[in-house]
């Protein structure tokens, strides 16, 4: 079809060229090229319609990144597809053959290179969360040791002893042999604990990007931002009257959140640029609320139906998902089906706070009604200051990159 059209257009081009001269010939040539491109694009969009349930409007661009060779398939133990930061960047690994004859190739920005087949699936590029999801670090983990320095104090293990008064009382109901036995056991215990010591944590100091925070007598939580460039931590102070005060601090801004009560925060959230943060907390009466670094308090009346709070990617608006209702700065913008489980990481709220793009069951449902089934990888990219959805698909043997404005 494409060839036939090409010959018709080429023949037309030739006859017109003979009649009207070179200048006109170039114009017609260009027209012919445009026609051929149209035909190719048409064929491409047909192949993208593997599923008739896909719906893509005019603002979606489609680019064939590479055509896999016969017998090549994505290495299924290798899920590290990197979509990069710009439209043309992409890398992944494919394999051909089996067993000893298996060979892997890396496709990186259009270049195909033989590489050793990966031996593990440790993929550092996990599915991108739609917002700056803080990562809680266990205080005793090796990762925490990179940032937290413990000051310890050493204590002597107490020696077991029995006073003369206690011995006298024992002799009233124990036989002589029993007392001798007990004394022997006591001597053994004293021998075992002699000069034994143990240490406890006196205080903790956070050392982050060359700065020192603390010391804190008690540190109960430690979080890192997605890019690991900022930390958030919860400290605990207990005064002489046994009043508990938790405090959320951060390396990002000077603001803190003070929380009265014996419960540490349930979770901590931060905006994409880390200029704002908030904590979901409960007071001693069991009432839940969200406290923000700007001094706002938002009540959470029904904690059993509370599904999460976070800041939107664009504009640092506070998002709350509760009872399947998604609110944007307090206004409900979408209600999800009652029996559906919604993952906040898969919700992308539009810059105007009106539409929501969601990813569920390997289907992207865009805010404007577009839809795409079974993408391999999805990323948000910044191109010239404008945000785009970028996703990868395998259509027949073509690896295709799609892009759509956020």
């Amino acid at each position: 079809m494409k060839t036939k059209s090409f010959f018709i257009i080429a023949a037309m081009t030739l006859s017109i060229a003979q009649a009207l001269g070179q200048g006109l010939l170039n114009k017609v040539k260009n027209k012919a090229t445009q026609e051929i491109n149209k035909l190719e694009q048409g064929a491409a969009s047909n192949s993208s319609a593997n599923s008739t349930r896909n719906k893509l409007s005019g603002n979606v661009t489609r680019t064939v990144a590479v055509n896999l060779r016969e017998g090549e398939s994505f290495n299924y133990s290798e899920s590290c597809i990197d979509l990069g930061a710009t439209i043309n960047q992409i890398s992944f690994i494919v394999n051909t053959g089996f067993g000893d004859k298996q060979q892997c190739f890396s496709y990186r920005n259009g270049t195909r290179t033989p590489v050793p087949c990966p031996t593990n699936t440790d993929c550092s590029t996990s599915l991108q969360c739609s917002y700056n999801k803080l990562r809680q670090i266990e205080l005793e983990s090796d990762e925490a040791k990179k940032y937290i320095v413990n000051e310890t104090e050493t204590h002597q293990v107490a020696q077991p002893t029995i006073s003369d008064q206690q011995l006298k009382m024992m002799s009233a109901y124990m036989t002589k042999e029993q007392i001798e036995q007990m004394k022997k056991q006591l001597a053994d215990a004293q021998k075992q604990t002699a000069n034994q010591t143990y240490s406890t944590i006196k205080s903790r100091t956070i050392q982050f990007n060359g700065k020192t925070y603390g010391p804190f007598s008690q540190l109960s939580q430690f979080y890192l931002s997605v890019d690991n460039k900022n930390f958030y931590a919860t400290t605990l102070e207990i005064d002489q009257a046994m009043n508990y005060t938790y405090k959320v601090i951060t390396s990002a801004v000077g603001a803190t959140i003070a929380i009265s009560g014996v419960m540490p925060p349930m979770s901590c959230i931060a905006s994409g640029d880390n200029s704002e943060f908030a904590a979901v907390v409960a007071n001693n009466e069991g009432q839940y609320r969200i406290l923000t670094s700007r001094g706002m308090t938002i009540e959470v009346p029904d904690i059993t139906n509370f599904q999460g709070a976070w800041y939107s990617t664009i504009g640092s608006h506070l998002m709350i998902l509760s009872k399947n209702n998604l609110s944007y700065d307090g206004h409900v913008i979408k209600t999800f089906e009652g029996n559906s489980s919604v993952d906040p990481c898969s919700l992308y709220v539009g810059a105007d706070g009106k539409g929501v793009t969601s990813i569920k069951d390997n289907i992207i449902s865009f805010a404007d009604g577009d839809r795409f089934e079974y993408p391999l990888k999805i990323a948000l990219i910044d191109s010239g200051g404008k945000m785009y959805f970028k996703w990868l698909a395998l259509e027949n043997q073509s690896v295709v990159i799609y892009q759509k404005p956020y």
Partner: protein
Amino acid sequence: MLKRVIFVLALGLPFVFATAQEDYGKIFSSDYSKANQFFVTEENWINDIIDSFHLKRKEIKAIVFPELIRYNSIQDKIETFALESLYIQHGKTYANFSIGRFQIKPSFAECIEIDFIKMFGESALKKFLKTIVVDTMQNIASREARLKRIKDEETQLTYVCLFFKIMEQKYPIWKTDKEKIRFFASAYNSAYRKSAKEIKEFANKNFFYAGFIPTKKYCYADIAWYYFQN
């Protein structure tokens, strides 16, 4: 006589070393405790599902326990999104991967569905998988539905129980608990459609490791048996 004693000792020594049990609770430490804790906190629904099959709770928990250990060590790092899309579109030959806490592969689920229907009938499978129609045909819709099923934790356990029913039907008589648990665990971890000889051979091999990079490998069957005893 002396020669005979040495010969007997030589034969016996590998057995002694092979059966010397490691302290897997210590080896896998926090991943082991978390796996154990999962069975405690989620006891109600887990027991309900196992009971509905009239199977022994301890046996089912033992054969999947090593998978729970592994899941705890890798859960923050695994990304199956691309593989899920590839499986739905192109099937198990293109993408076959482990999902969730019980580390179920789509190919395993496909085999279980087919074999269970053959042994116990379609209505029995419908009852346990709680779907109106279990479609074992190879098409996008059936793979999509299967993937949804195996991403659900309760259904994952249901697949484990279906596997156990198939195995009990196929291998009904056992001399000891140890033989049965080690054999079933190996079948679960390798491929239950293999011959009994191959599964038995696998039961003595060290292929199991937590995390992504195998620093030291252990025997899946031994870990399952260790959990069963403790």
